[in-house]
């Protein structure tokens, strides 16, 4: 079996900064935009890029994620050969090892990748919201005869100190790396998307695995090692919507971006669709007294109250005489008669009594986001 490019999607992270949203669930499986889960974005990108072998590396509470990915058919990743493969840590003859870093996770699955005998390996992470045609990055990688290509995007100079920053020459070849630099030399930030030539990567992973000092991380260990050994590392310039949703605030903001009609990130674009593994629910029932504006609402909802600038996932029940504003509601939550909520994230199956009042303090410049779990 020969596949030009295999994608490896790092989906093992807990995402502890997302707090209660990841108690029972890995970060890539957290709901986003109502019906999506974060992992839908890289998986749909693969599908839109004609990459049809995807290894999904799991480790932290993978049950929901495993179930959700299933046989990959939701992203048309169910070809006879190829498709989506879930790769948990496993026990071999010499015992088992948890994935101890992003590079180690790939290292432990070298056999899996070798099955497909690929020329290139695309390494992705499961916690960003963006649309990208990876096949263009692959073309770039081939055109540059690169050993490694890293997708980068321009960030505002004032934010550059929060990112991994690269310096490039005119050919886009990377001349220097700076990890969260105090004084950034450029505003090109790495997006954590890598195309490797498999031969190079395989060798590097094997070397890294033998290095006791290494934390087996791509950013901290493997890429610096490749850089030092003078490998051809290029920066693939990307521009467009891209968000890390690693904190409650960034998660909330990225969700709310979907309600902005001027936001360039467009879920309705038929030419680059974001797929998800749908559940079948009845259509939305909008009650006689309902008032909805500027919101995203999913199937299975019953809305009888007032919903403004909010996102409702499946099977949410909003009783009457409610006011919801800037609220993200996850699957199956129930809000009883009379509750008033603002700037909230309600976890799955949360139940809000009618006497609850959560109203943003007008005095604070950035209103606090309340997270209420079931």
């Amino acid at each position, binding site marked *: 079996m020969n596949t030009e490019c295999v994608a490896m999607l790092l989906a093992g992270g807990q995402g502890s900064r997302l707090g209660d949203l990841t108690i029972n669930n890995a970060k890539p499986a957290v709901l986003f935009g109502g*019906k999506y889960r974060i992992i839908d974005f890289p998986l749909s990108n693969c599908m839109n890029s004609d990459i049809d072998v995807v290894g999904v590396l799991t480790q932290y509470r993978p049950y929901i994620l495993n179930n959700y990915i299933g046989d990959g058919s939701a992203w048309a990743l169910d070809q006879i050969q190829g498709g989506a493969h879930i790769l948990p840590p496993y026990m071999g003859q010499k015992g088992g090892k948890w994935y101890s870093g992003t590079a180690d996770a790939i290292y432990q699955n070298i056999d899996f990748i070798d099955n497909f005998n690929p020329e290139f390996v695309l390494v992705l992470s499961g916690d960003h919201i963006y649309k990208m045609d990876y096949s263009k990055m692959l073309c770039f990688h081939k055109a540059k005869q690169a050993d490694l290509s890293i997708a980068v995007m321009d960030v505002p100079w004032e934010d550059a100190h929060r990112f991994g920053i690269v310096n490039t020459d005119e050919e886009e070849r990377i001349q220097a790396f700076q990890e969260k630099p105090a004084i950034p030399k450029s505003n090109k930030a790495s997006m954590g998307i890598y195309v490797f030539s498999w031969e190079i990567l395989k060798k590097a992973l094997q070397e890294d695995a033998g290095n006791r000092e290494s934390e087996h991380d791509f950013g901290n260990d493997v890429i610096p090692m490749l850089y030092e050994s003078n490998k051809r590392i290029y920066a693939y310039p990307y521009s467009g919507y891209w968000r890390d949703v690693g904190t409650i605030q960034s998660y909330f903001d990225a969700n709310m971006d979907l309600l902005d*009609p001027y936001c360039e990130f467009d879920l309705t674009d038929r030419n680059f669709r974001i797929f998800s593994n749908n559940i*079948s629910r009845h*259509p*939305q029932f909008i*009650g006689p007294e*309902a008032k909805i*504006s*500027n919101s995203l*609402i999913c199937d299975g909802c019953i809305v009888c109250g007032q919903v403004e600038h909010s996102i409702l996932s499946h099977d949410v029940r909003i009783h009457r005489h409610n006011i919801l504003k800037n609220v993200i509601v996850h699957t199956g939550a129930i809000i009883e008669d009379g509750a008033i909520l603002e700037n909230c994230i309600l976890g799955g199956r949360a139940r809000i009594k009618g006497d609850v009042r959560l109203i943003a303090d007008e005095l604070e410049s950035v209103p606090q986001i309340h997270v209420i779990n079931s």
Partner: protein
Amino acid sequence: MKNAIGLILNIDCEDPSLKEFLQHRSLSTLPFGGRYRLIDFTLSNMVNSGLSHIGVIGSNKYNSLVDHLGTGKEWSLSRKTQDLSILAGANSGRLGHKMKVNLKDLQNNRDFLETASGEHVIISPPNHITSFDYRNAYEIHSQNNSDVTLIYKKDDSTYHLHDDDIYLDLYNKRVSSIYYKKEQQTNYFFTEMLIIKKSILIQFLDLCECTGDWDLMDMIAINLDTLRVFSAEHTGYLKRIKTLENYMKASMDLLEYDIMRELFLEKASIHTKIKDNHPSIYRDSSSVSHSIVGSGCNIDGTIFHSIIFRDIIMGSDSQIKNSIIMQKCKIGNHVTLDYVVMDKDTKISDYTTLIGKPHDPIIIKKGTVI
């Protein structure tokens, strides 16, 4: 229910009021309720009742049926165990007499009947809106060792009856006579769902081959004295879609919370083909109330008392009332629609006003641009 096979008939709807909707599809795949096709109700009821071998007879316009059902995965029917068979009906042209169950369709599929394991056949038309569990009726059928069990409903004045309805006389749950017209004071009418022993059905098929009479209900009526024909009651909500008026009424019924709850929330789910749309977007100036809305919509206007299917785009300063808008319709800005039924893929240009009447809605044919 392991011992029963489900069989969903093909109904050639001849009512002129639905003609425009049935040019490219069979009655069984008429869109309904924001995301369903009519057949979803019967098929889901059968699956939810525990039937795992189901045959669906298609018409000559089988594309939409085949596309919709696939291999039945969305209804938990497995390709591995051949749970779902899509069957071709008899292509023999139509006979003069409008039949409830055309045995020629079954004759054409004797193979399916004979090889499917199960001694009883549950037969239903594809145009019933109901959430019905066949297990009760099957229990009655088994307990009485019936040859046939006819499922009936008590006729109350609110019920919408049809000219071709069949009525039953019952005596201790046993069917004592079958009428084609409401001649006498009976208030039990036949829902067109029935359970029959496979062996009896096969005998009928053999018999028809000789006599040339091909209506199952006639066969049952003629043999009422020799067969054990019992009855089972259907008590919940049931609408049968045969005319545009039925269709409108049943659609608008969904806006009553109690009916919606009975169909979708209380009992097992009604399944349908999964479409992967984005959540519906309600824009800043939208105002939607008392409506059913499917996914994938992009709404920027006022909607009241309407059924909005999936993938509708609606411009600003537009109004939709008392209407049914099927999937993928585009409605421009400053449009007013009242009592309109739009088939899928139709477009309404800016500044259009269409106002129909409650009993005579305006129908917009599939693919039309206005």
